[in-house]
């Protein structure tokens, strides 16, 4: 922790995770080295069950690694969690159905002990950021799946974290909604300059969003390739029409095929 700037962002070194069960042990992660620089957007892509969610859960302190080292902004995940260094967006919107949209977004602030007027104001700002200010008084079930996931993003951003951990947040959405939310995420990221770790199994999504893509193989889950995405920011709908975009899509697909070949 000598040099503060070096430790910002996400770091994993020789990270391993073994799940034990009656049916036998599963090596979910093996020797994973990963570095996401502060302000970077790293996507992790890999076949289902390759351990990419486990990796994200290790950063968010929901899974205890078996071996290796891991840090968020130079802190152990548990410390980082307590210090509100990161916000998590889950696979499902994970909203509390009995709370209004506003009170879902204020929840992390309530935990922090922020007084009600302040947290309502902050939550409304966050809802404004995702374009859902007018739905503050609605209940989650009155919103579409895409809107619910935007509320979940607003909630994760409410504590103003410097790191956003997103576990396949748009995986359950249709392609059109997903494309729209990708654009929106780019806009938000541009405004906040947060470090983002993003899990996905969509190649185009990974290429569109990321500054770097880590390709994972499964059983044991390990990172087989790192691909830099040198498309200019800010990215918008024209980005998808660039020839470089297609070249990268082809490259990521090739890397994924190779990663899958390792196991089969």
């Amino acid at each position: 922790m000598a040099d503060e700037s070096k430790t910002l962002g996400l770091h994993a070194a020789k990270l391993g995770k073994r799940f034990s069960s009656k049916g036998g042990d599963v090596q979910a992660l093996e020797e994973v080295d990963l570095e996401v620089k502060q302000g970077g957007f790293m996507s992790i892509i890999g076949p289902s069950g390759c351990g990419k969610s486990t990796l994200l859960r290790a950063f968010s302190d929901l899974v205890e690694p078996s071996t290796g080292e891991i840090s968020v902004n130079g802190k152990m995940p548990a410390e980082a969690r307590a210090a509100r260094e990161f916000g998590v967006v889950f696979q499902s919107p994970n909203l509390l159905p009995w709370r209004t949209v506003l009170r879902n977004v204020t929840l992390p602030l309530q935990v922090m002990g922020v007084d009600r007027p302040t947290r309502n104001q902050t939550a409304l700002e966050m809802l404004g950021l995702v374009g859902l200010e007018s739905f503050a008084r609605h209940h989650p079930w009155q919103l579409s799946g895409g809107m619910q996931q935007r509320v979940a993003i607003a909630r994760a951003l409410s504590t103003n974290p410097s790191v956003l951990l997103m576990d396949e947040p748009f995986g359950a959405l249709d392609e059109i909604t997903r494309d729209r939310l990708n654009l929106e995420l780019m806009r938000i990221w541009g405004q906040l300059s947060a470090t983002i770790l993003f899990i996905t199994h969509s190649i185009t999504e990974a290429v569109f969003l990321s500054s770097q893509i880590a390709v994972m193989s499964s059983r044991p889950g390990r990172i087989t390739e790192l691909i830099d995405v040198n498309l200019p920011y800010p990215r918008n709908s024209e980005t998808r029409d660039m020839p470089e975009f297609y070249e990268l899509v082809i490259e990521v697909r090739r890397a994924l095929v190779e990663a899958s070949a390792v196991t089969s």
Partner: protein
Amino acid sequence: MTTEGVTLAEEPDSKDSRKSLPIGVVLTPTIFFAAFLAIWELAVRLGDVQVLMLPAPSVIWSKFIKDFDLLVELAVNTGTEAGKGVLIGSFIAIGLAGLVHGIGWLNQGLLSYSSTVKALPVVALYPVMTVFFGVTSKAVVMMVAVGVAPIMFTFASRGFSGTSEHDDLMRSISANWRIRMTALVLPRALPYVMAGLRTAVPLSIIISIISEYFGGSVSTLGAYIRRESTQLHTVQVWSAIVMACVLGVLVFVAVSLLDRYFLRWHSSRREA
């Protein structure tokens, strides 16, 4: 134990059946009931049945109207006993379930215990209750509490034992115990508690009335029915039975309304 869960409608939606009430749902039972009353009335009149044996519905009804104020007073007293019993029993059961829900073996032990108690005829305990509390209204209340508690414990315990992705959320935002309980655990258990109440509340009326047969306050439905029946005042007995039915329906409707209000966020309670 799994069969009771069905009433929770965890499975998708039963909203189709709620959307429009088919005429048959209201009309058919009404016609049947009217026919039933008509046959009863005719049988009593044509068969020249003695009023001691079976009074005609019209006779019961006029007695019911005439004694309405008295019957309401009796029903209010019985209802109050039942309500107090439900409150005490539920409070203890839910509190206990909340306390032990993290402690596996204790929870399991209490769960099998409460399942057994549920199957027992708790009303048989009434004489014991009168030893503790005397032949008073309090003994009836405690009887209801004892009858209701195992049901509420079983449901509440199942409600508390639920897990969901929300637990990950709570951990990721470092929620303390108090917020975890109020924002997640209690609301998540609420559908189970309401399902428990739908069983427990009608049962509480039954337990109250049967307990009142054996004593307690004189101004209750059970005590009135027993007193009048020993004097062969059959019409009075029947009018009190009608009032007991009215009470039963009212508390059921009350619980259903509470259910709708508190669980309006629940997928199974949605109209549109």
